[in-house]
């Protein structure tokens, strides 16, 4: 929230801020400004305006990611998978290809909340594998712009005690403004899970 207003203006501004807060509380996903950071995981639709902050994690842009890359962070892409439409004609090519940051591990929909317990367990185990059990290893979570999935993934890891969690809200789209992407396949261990609906 903005700094407290000066006393003379306080009543009117206070009312305005109250109205704004009410508006944001009513429809945070519809407003790009001052989306409040939820205390817990975001359980609304994954697509929507996200906050500018994430407590316990570092919010980075692609420039900061470039600077971080020499440390070989774990790159965790949680973008959801393209959904094949029901009744898609059998004879037509359906060839979804997920483009991501080269070297990323793609765990589609891992930022959903809630996740089925076994899926959440698998998520933590995969990150433990990828970090070699080092909770101080840098981990970057991302999906797309206006995507809560990567915010949630980072939130989960902060809560698990990882100390160098980076959230890249610009996502793959931010990366591809400056660099090449690569077709990345779903993490095989993650693909073996029982699938929660993508929402």
């Amino acid at each position, binding site marked *: 929230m903005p700094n407290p207003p000066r006393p003379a203006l306080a009543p009117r501004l206070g009312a305005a801020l109250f109205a704004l807060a009410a508006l944001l509380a009513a429809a945070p996903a519809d407003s790009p400004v001052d989306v409040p950071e939820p205390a817990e995981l975001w359980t609304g639709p994954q697509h929507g305006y996200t906050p500018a902050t994430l407590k316990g994690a570092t919010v980075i842009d692609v420039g900061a990611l470039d600077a971080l890359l020499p440390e070989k962070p774990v790159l965790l892409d949680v973008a959801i998978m393209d959904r*094949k439409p029901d*009744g898609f004609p059998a004879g037509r090519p359906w060839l979804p290809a997920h*483009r991501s940051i080269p070297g990323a591990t793609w765990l589609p929909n891992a930022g959903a909340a809630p996740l089925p317990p076994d899926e959440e367990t698998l998520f933590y185990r995969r990150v433990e594998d990828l970090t070699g059990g080092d909770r101080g290893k840098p981990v970057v979570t991302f999906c797309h712009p206006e995507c809560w999935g990567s915010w949630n993934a980072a939130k989960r890891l902060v809560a698990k005690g990882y100390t160098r969690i980076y959230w890249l809200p610009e996502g793959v789209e931010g990366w591809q403004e400056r660099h090449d992407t690569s*077709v990345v396949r779903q993490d095989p261990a993650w693909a073996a899970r029982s699938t929660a609906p993508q929402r």
Partner: protein
Amino acid sequence: MKTRHPLALGLALSTALAAALAPVPGLAAGASDSDTERQARWTEIATSIFGDRKIEPTDTLIKVDAPARAMDAALVPITLTMPEKDKIKGVHFIIDDNPSPYAAHFTFGPAADPGELKLRVRINNYTNVHAVAETTEGKLFEAQKFVKASGGCSAPMGMSDEEAMRGMGDMKMKFSGDAQSGKPVEATLMIRHPNFSGMQMNQVTRDYTPARYINKVTVSYGDANVFTMDGDISISSNPVINFAFVPKGNGPIKVAATDNQGGQWQHSFTAPSPSN
């Protein structure tokens, strides 16, 4: 059209991609790797659509124009130009990185003037797009362009499904230029239809809106076919198609459209007729 079993194709693609990706350790992918990967994907798509028919590059038979960076990924304007129009029998338009890459196939009839086509498409990712012209001799020629746009296939329409479907099947047609016997007339066909991709989530219910898209449009002038388009989920909502036809004899110009849910619509328009 030759098709392969989707699973076999998927496996073939996975194998090709695995091969393309194998030598990339960690973050070392350079431009050439990316180009190789994009070329490998185009080869897979082309094989799935055209089988083993040869496709030659061309600078003259077909050109594809699109904004290098699209303002709206759900409404990317595409212009296909075929300067040697008498040689052209049909045109295929493919958006390589869309999950459903085969966006449209046009075949031209005797009343067509196949010099230029315009349409608007959805683009899911920074991608090459390919236009493939089929000549009257049955040969295939390709042109490509790289387009920067993303998220077009799943972008919600910003209104309720009911609202988006209101007036579905309504059509308008605009003509430009004076009709002179034997001279082509440009026309713009506008069809009201949401063309739901099946990948769009309703932001309120959080359910996916079922795919409902125009799968065939046939345009004729009098008794003669102008063009037939086989469409796909990659065509933008409220499809707009610019084309040209040659008015010989009397109109009207007729449009018949169907969608994948059994919707059928026919409209007749009074075409400008030759004055002399």
